[in-house]
């Protein structure tokens, strides 16, 4: 058996006395799409922030291609694309300028063509010279997706990427995600939209109160069994 692309071992994270992740073990094969469900405050965002190197775990390790991300964060960041709750954009730059800036940070060749391609895909090319400040919520979210995909990263960490997107934009996003990175693209995504999540997933994980309580291939789960399953594992789902 080959080493999995991403290995998470005994991952814990506490903010002060508040323990958020209570020991997560997980390994993710290259090319798979993992979708993570869980109630508000379960720790999904915290988990993705640690994978993205933005936050450091209290204990435990994360290995990407066998390398501890602590040891070579710069090298790993090249391969990551992140859609987070915040769009990571500058209000006072235009759509084009924002992507131009990130293209420089990622040292892209032919940035103009790539920016144009993405802005066209997310339907914002004709608005490229408007400040992000003036965009509607869904438009900002489209920008956030374009930003994350700019450097064509093989690993995508998507934290509720579909929020604020209209139904057609959500489909556009699904298509975009299918195309990006070829057969080797690996996706870890959270969403509260169970059906949409299942559609994209080939593995479903449920995170509740900082622990993984469910983990199964998506093919095992029938579409209309999803909600009962969710309720069963998540329980009453009060915030923890």
């Amino acid at each position: 058996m080959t080493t999995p692309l991403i290995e998470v071992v005994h991952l814990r994270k506490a903010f002060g006395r508040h323990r958020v992740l209570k020991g997560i073990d997980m390994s993710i094969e290259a090319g798979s799409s993992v979708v993570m469900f869980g109630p508000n405050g379960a720790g999904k965002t915290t988990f993705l922030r640690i994978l993205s190197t933005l936050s450091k775990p209290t204990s435990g390790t994360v290995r990407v291609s066998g390398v501890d991300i602590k040891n070579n964060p710069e090298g790993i960041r090249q391969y990551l694309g992140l859609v987070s709750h915040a769009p990571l954009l500058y209000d006072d730059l235009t759509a084009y300028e924002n992507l131009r800036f990130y293209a420089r940070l990622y040292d892209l060749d032919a940035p103009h063509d790539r920016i144009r391609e993405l802005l066209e895909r997310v339907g914002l090319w004709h608005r490229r010279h408007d400040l992000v400040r003036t965009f509607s919520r869904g438009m900002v979210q489209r920008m956030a997706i374009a930003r994350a995909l700019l450097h064509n990263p093989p690993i995508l960490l998507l934290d509720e990427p579909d929020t604020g997107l209209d139904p057609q934009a959500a489909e556009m996003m699904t298509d975009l995600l299918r195309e990006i990175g070829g057969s080797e693209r690996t996706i870890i995504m959270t969403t509260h939209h169970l059906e949409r999540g299942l559609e994209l997933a080939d593995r479903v994980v449920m995170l509740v109160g900082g622990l993984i309580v469910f983990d199964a291939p998506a093919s095992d789960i029938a579409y209309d069994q999803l909600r009962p399953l969710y309720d069963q594992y998540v329980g009453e789902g009060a915030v923890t």
Partner: protein
Amino acid sequence: MKRYLSVVWAVLWKDLRIELRSKDIFTSMAVFAVLAVMIFNFAFELRVPDKTVVIPGVLWVTITFSGVLGLGRAFISEKDRGSIAGLLLAPVDRSAIYFGKMLASLIFILVVEAFLLPLMVIFFNTNFISLPLILLLFLGTLGFAAVGTIFSGLAVNTRTREILLPVLLFPVMLPVLMAGIRATIGFMEGDALADMMKWFNLIIFFDILYIVVAYLTFDYVVEE
């Protein structure tokens, strides 16, 4: 190396672009500088027999205070839409980000100085500007921007935020500030340039020290 410089440039360009859009930082610095000079001018006019004696003090104090105002905002645009995280995700040595932001701060303060100097010449009615003075100001500002940028990053991570910045920054900046004032006094009194080399050397020494230490520690400031 080319990659590194291109990131420095990208960050610098971005900060300048945003500033040119909103002119936030620049206006608050400039307004403060003008106010301060006018206040000093009025305050000393009536009481000090020869106003030029206060020029070195007024000059450096105004630069320091308006500089802190500007530096306090250096990381504010990064909080807009969580964009600091966007920077931190870039696959690049984070010191490049530091240098980009540091150069942007340096430029803002230098621009304010370029306004301030002629203004003071007019208000105090003495032409005290000289090439060595400009060099001195540049060197002093360099150290100031070097430390200020990293402390600005420190301060945004605390509960007190901007208020803490001057408290952290001023005592650390004092060696450079003192040397700057002494050297300016030297210029005004026409001391020989050779006599003042020690002040220049002190400032240059601290500039290098600050930049090196900031280069080595910035990563720790922004990581979470």
